[in-house]
């Protein structure tokens, strides 16, 4: 004890008060870890998770901003608090519709709940990392929990195969990221983002460029940008659909936030290296994602490729390398998370019913059978396509502006052309829903919570397009907070 006391006296006790959201999520996860051994009560476990996430989301508002804790390894600024809040709120919607889905698949595991909470904890750590070690640990906590979650579907071989592919390629991505970190560490002698920026300044040499390129490749792999997207369709298709929503919505949001923070804070001075790299990855993602999505008959796979294409749109904003770009990427990432989650949860709700195979044909005549749900899907498809007055339009508009402001015309043209191409598959669903007679009039069986959650998310998508001022302001605030940190070095 003597040694421990002298260490604490030297360093000081870290401020645990600002870690309350993380502590709540961790406590709930560990409680469920023990509790699920004794009870098979799904509603209890799910209610406990939702309660914990809600409590953590509320506690975010009571935390003082701008504090660095755990000896500089953990930052609690506006950026991290807002993204934490968004991650918690959006994961609640997934937990809310999770039980009916696993009931219908007869694939109950108590592990689902705490693994989801652990991956959410990993995302929260990711977005509040001022340091490459913290970023790496958060990223891995998230990914490793997700590897298991993908494989947790009973008597389903595809789920195991998807999980294994995700594990192998995700593991390779982890190794590439850590090699990038090793090169940057060897060059600068520090893991701290601001420290790296101070050391590199504007003159980045070959070692630094190598590290940066490996880091970009690894992060692009985690965000499933082409040409590092092989795992995405398989893992997304094989996973239980609510887990796909978690991977394709919330985890993506955390990854984008981390990408923005790392590129801006640590490599703010070397935008001439990373801007073209992200531009090429973004262009490839837009082209490949949209063209392959056109050929998909399965809507889950189609949404997966659409999520690859959206990775392209979102990363395209980084190619501009200026404040407008960071603003646009944050805004689009924030509205995209609602669209993606609502899209996958829509499938998860219908997938529970007999005779629904997620194929495009199943959508035929849906407007006659479920007018309200069809309307929600219409809003979502228009939003992903980017038709005003939906949030997707405002997001694409922001990215368009940022690319023009940086004179990256070729990428702007790719963005516009691929957006037009994407109409081919989004509108096919809309046409199937509204222009065909239903084969049977039988209603699908949906719970009230599922309807409410999907309705909430799609109406939010519409409202954010009609009245984007709140999210504009927030993105503005976050961009300023990021750039302030980068400039203050």
């Amino acid at each position, binding site marked *: 004890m003597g040694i421990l006391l002298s260490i604490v006296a030297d360093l000081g006790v870290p401020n645990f008060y600002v870690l309350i959201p993380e502590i709540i999520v961790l406590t709930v996860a560990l409680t469920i870890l023990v509790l699920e051994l004794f009870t098979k009560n799904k509603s209890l476990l799910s209610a406990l998770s939702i309660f914990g996430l809600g409590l953590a989301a509320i506690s975010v508002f009571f935390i003082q901003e701008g504090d660095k804790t755990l000896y500089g390894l953990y930052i609690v600024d506006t950026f991290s608090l807002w993204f934490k809040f968004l991650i918690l709120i959006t994961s609640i919607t997934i937990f809310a519709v999770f039980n009916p889905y696993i009931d219908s698949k007869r694939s109950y595991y108590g592990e689902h709940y705490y693994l989801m909470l652990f991956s959410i904890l990993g995302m929260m750590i990711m977005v509040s990392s001022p340091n490459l*070690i913290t970023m*790496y*640990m958060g990223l*891995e906590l998230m990914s*490793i929990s997700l*590897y*298991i979650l993908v*494989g947790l579907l009973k008597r389903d*071989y*595809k789920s*195991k*195969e*998807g*999980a*294994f*592919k995700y*594990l*192998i*390629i995700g*593991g*390779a991505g*982890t*190794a*590439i990221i*850590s*090699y990038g*970190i*090793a*090169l940057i*560490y*060897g060059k600068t*002698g*520090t*893991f701290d983002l601001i420290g790296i920026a101070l050391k590199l300044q504007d003159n980045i040499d070959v070692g630094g460029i190598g590290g940066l390129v490996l880091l970009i490749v690894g992060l692009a792999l985690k965000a499933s940008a082409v040409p590092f997207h*092989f795992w995405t*369709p*398989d893992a997304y*298709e*094989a996973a239980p659909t609510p887990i796909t929503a978690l991977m394709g919505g919330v985890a993506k949001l955390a990854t984008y936030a981390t990408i923005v923070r790392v590129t801006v804070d640590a490599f703010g001075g070397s935008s001439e290296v990373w801007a073209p790299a992200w531009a090429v990855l973004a262009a490839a993602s837009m082209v490949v994602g949209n063209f392959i999505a056109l050929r998909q008959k399965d809507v889950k796979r189609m949404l997966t490729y659409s999520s690859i294409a959206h990775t392209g749109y979102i990363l395209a904003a980084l190619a501009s390398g200026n404040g407008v770009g960071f603003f646009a990427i944050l805004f689009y990432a924030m509205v995209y998370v609602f669209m993606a989650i609502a899209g996958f949860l829509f499938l998860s709700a219908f997938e529970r019913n007999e005779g629904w195979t997620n194929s495009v044909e199943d959508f035929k005549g849906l407007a006659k059978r479920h007018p309200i749900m069809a309307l929600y899907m219409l809003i979502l498809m228009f939003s992903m396509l980017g038709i005003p007055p939906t949030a997707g339009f405002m997001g694409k508009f922001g990215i368009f502006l940022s690319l023009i402001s940086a004179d990256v015309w070729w990428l702007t043209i790719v963005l516009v052309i691929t957006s037009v191409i994407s109409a081919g598959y989004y509108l096919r669903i809309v046409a199937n829903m509204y222009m065909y007679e239903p084969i049977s009039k039988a209603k699908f069986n949906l719970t009230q919570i599922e309807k409410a959650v999907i309705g909430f998310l799609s109406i939010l998508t519409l409202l954010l397009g009609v009245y984007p001022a709140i999210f504009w302001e927030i993105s503005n605030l976050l961009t300023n907070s990021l750039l302030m940190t980068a400039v203050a070095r």
Partner: protein
Amino acid sequence: MSVSYEYYLVLSGLLMVIGLIGIIIRKNIIALLISTELMLNSVNIAFVAFDIKLQDVAGQVFVFFILTIAAAEAAIGLGLIMAIYRMKRDVDVTKISELKG
């Protein structure tokens, strides 16, 4: 006589590339998992080599994190291999693949 740190870096880079090639060309799922582990552990050599250069210990701390993650990934990977083998009685990627990528 001590070996200068560049040699260790070359070794780690070589192991990294071997691991990457392994992931691309091997057809056995156990070999795929081994290749991933090889890649992760090659990074450890790089970190320790940079610590020789920088006269620091921060890199060696990072090595512990990577070891933990590699262990977790190996555990999940072996679990999945068991699950796959139970269902398909085979470990050849070309024979057991159902998803089209």
